[in-house]
């Protein structure tokens, strides 16, 4: 078991590194192809040719693409993530990408953690409850409710949440934000409502998914066995059905989590949170290549790591997979 685990992790690490490399090349190539020029983006179209040429030289843009890529990846391998073309630290010094992202990442990660927490804590009991099929009315009600919640676009949901909790109930200050370095508790408080906006549609999806999975699982023979032992409906659902029904749900949750950790761009925008998602959008329009490249690598790594965790969870849930 120990050996198998080490082997598995080793294998996944190799996959991770190979994927990151391929993605970094692809992102670099994409940047060569898309129209637009970083020098124009920085200086505007009115700049003199001399200034443009000087900046081009400074940024190393006159080197051939292969050299630039090698230069960049050499830096990354040595722990230097490069410097942003766009953001500067002082008049003459450009902001290191590591510093820039290090600033935004906690916002996105904490937002994701809160959202995932809400999703798991609400959707699983809701799905189990729903699958018990207590009454037709409740079934129909939950069906309509989840369907409509899923259909609402997240920016609109964000506006609704802001309106309801911010303007009417005044539980938080819309547009306000406290940085986590200053006041961590306050920071979390500001993240709760964005996290709810992120979570609500996903809760609806996950609950529906879990319910369907449990309804299928409920027809299994072992459920009849559990009933023949004298288990109550609740004991059958939580003690037997839930774990087996979680298999497809875990995959689905993995997809959702990867999506959220990669940045909930719309929600960050609506709530004015300085997260990774917003940074990605602005950096792409600014042609801020070093920042975009690192963000893409971050998202890739997140997706792969989350899927690896899903893989591990499979093994925990289903003993038959452990032996494969």
């Amino acid at each position, binding site marked *: 078991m120990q050996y198998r685990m080490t082997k598995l992790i080793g*294998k996944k690490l*190799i996959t991770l590194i190979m994927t990151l490399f391929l993605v970094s090349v692809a992102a670099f190539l994409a940047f060569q192809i898309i129209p637009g020029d970083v020098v124009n983006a920085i200086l505007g179209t009115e700049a003199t040719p001399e200034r443009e040429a000087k900046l081009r030289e400074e940024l190393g843009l006159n080197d051939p693409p292969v050299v630039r890529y090698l230069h960049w990846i050499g830096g990354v391998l040595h722990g230097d993530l490069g410097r942003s073309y766009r953001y500067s630290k002082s008049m003459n010094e450009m902001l290191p990408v590591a510093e820039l992202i290090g600033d935004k990442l906690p916002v996105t990660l904490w937002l994701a953690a809160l959202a995932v927490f809400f999703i798991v804590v609400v959707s699983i009991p809701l799905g189990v409850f729903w699958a018990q099929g207590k009454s037709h009315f409740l079934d129909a009600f939950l069906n309509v409710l989840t369907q409509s919640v899923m259909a609402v676009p997240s920016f609109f949901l964000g506006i609704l949440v802001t309106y309801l909790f911010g303007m009417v109930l005044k539980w938080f200050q819309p547009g306000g934000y406290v940085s986590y370095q200053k006041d961590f508790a306050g920071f979390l408080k500001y993240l709760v409502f964005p996290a709810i906006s992120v979570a609500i549609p996903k809760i609806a999806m996950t609950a529906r998914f879990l319910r369907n999975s449990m309804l299928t699982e409920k027809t*299994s*023979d*072992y459920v*009849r*066995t*559990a*009933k*023949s*032992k*004298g*288990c*109550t*409906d609740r*004991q059958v659902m939580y*003690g*037997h059905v839930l*774990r*087996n029904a979680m298999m497809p749900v875990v995959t689905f949750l993995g997809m959702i989590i990867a999506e959220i950790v990669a940045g909930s761009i719309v929600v960050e925008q609506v709530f004015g949170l300085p997260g990774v998602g917003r940074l990605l959008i602005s950096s792409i329009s600014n042609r801020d290549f070093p920042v975009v490249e690192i963000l893409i690598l971050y998202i890739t790594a997140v997706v792969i790591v989350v899927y690896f965790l899903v893989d591990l969870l499979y093994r925990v*849930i*289903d*003993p*038959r997979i452990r032996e*494969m």
Partner: protein
Amino acid sequence: MKEIAAKAMVKIEDLSVHFGETKAVEHVNLTVAPGEILGIVGESGSGKSVTALTLMGLVADSAKMISGRILFEDTVLAESGKPRDKALYRRFQGEQMTMVFQEPMTSLNPTKRVGAQVEEMLLLHTQLTREERYQKVCESFQAVGLKNPEKVYRAYPHQLSGGMRQRAMIAMATILHPKLIVADEPTTALDVTIQNQIIELLRKINQKEKNAMIFITHDLNLARRLCHRIAVMQNGHVVECRGTQEVFADPKEEYTRRLIEAVPSRMKPKIKIQRSNREPVAVVEHLNVYYHDGGGLLSRKSRQQVIRDADFTIYRGEVLGLVGESGCGKSTLSKALLGMNRDIEGEIRHFSTRPQMIFQDPYSSLNPCKTIEWLLTEPLRAAGEIDPAFKMSAADRRAEAHDMLRKVGLDEKYLDRRPSQLSGGQRQRISIGQALITKPGLVIADEPVSALDVTLQAQIMELMRRLQDEMHMAYLFISHDINVVYQMSDRIMVMKDGQIVEQGETEEIFRAPKDPYTQLLLQES
């Protein structure tokens, strides 16, 4: 009869259960006394399982109890017109009455350790401490003949063999010494040798604990060996309910007689065919077949030998039977013959074109989205792609399908139906039609009757023989049931652990089996 009724512990009185329009159970009266084993025998759909599940309070919610009531000792468990009282049932389920199900693999929770699943009985119904529970579970494993109870306790269901799983199920059903045990086809999914052990175990438990037992089966022979009384069910009715000896000595009902006769038996005369010449359709020489496990981008494959040195010939117009327990390599051999397994050593020579296959499960082997016509004409379309002789118009194909349908005993109104609208027996007829429509020289039939009731079994086997007379192909007939193979085959091969241990003329092997394994198989059945 009166005596038993007086001391009866479970009484089912005038029970009728309907599912919508379907009348599953009609006015059934049954009783069981302590220490008695009652057999309920009938074909699938006869209402035997619904009766048992209703008694146990486990029948689906869509079932409606139209009439009657169920008594357990002096308690009325269920009565028509009243909704099912789940709380009342839970006082009896597990503690007073338990059930052993047909399929021990799916009836156990795949993600829970076997020990924990048995222990759940104690958690639900007793106040024992953790150690006491563990002790008791291990004792119960020992009592049902599971050696190494600690290991079984920690195992997951898939890590045990079918027989061990069923023993664990029985341990679960007996651990609280219930007054009633209902066993619903507990041996149907098991090999013959294991079947007998389980039957013996149930008999032993009944003798020791003196509990009432209801044994549900479609196999009259099994019921005969275990049960004191037998109730024969047909279309929801109990048509006959008497002592086992009496039922067999003098069956009152035509239906009972048919059931007794349909059981494949060595006592009955075989259908004989004359073999004109010894012209081979397939020759297999020194065949080794390997199987691969795993194998991804970065993992190493493991290669296992499944078939060892198989040597045999199938002749035109004969039926070659292949018998052995599940997992012995029967299906692997048939796949290799059809070229579906490429890692082989040795030689397979075919002297006929397009060998075809008939599969075991007519429910899952027919595409449910397609019409019968589409399914029957598909082999013709496929053959037309590679063989100009089969290039034909859609109208011709339809005509062929039409003919074939008649040959397998169905009429043309079925052409536009889909598999779900057909019964199991009808579906298997379609499978046979699919296999035969391109007039192959060799047909491999992999357990073609194992999923069917005895009476259907007899019909399908007769159909296969009749079609062979008309079309002169050879069958490789695979089954785990040696009696079925006896009925069908001219020659027999016996397989064990991937090796053909014996082959020869059917009569000869049955009269004087040479290999000890063949002798064992013949004794057990």
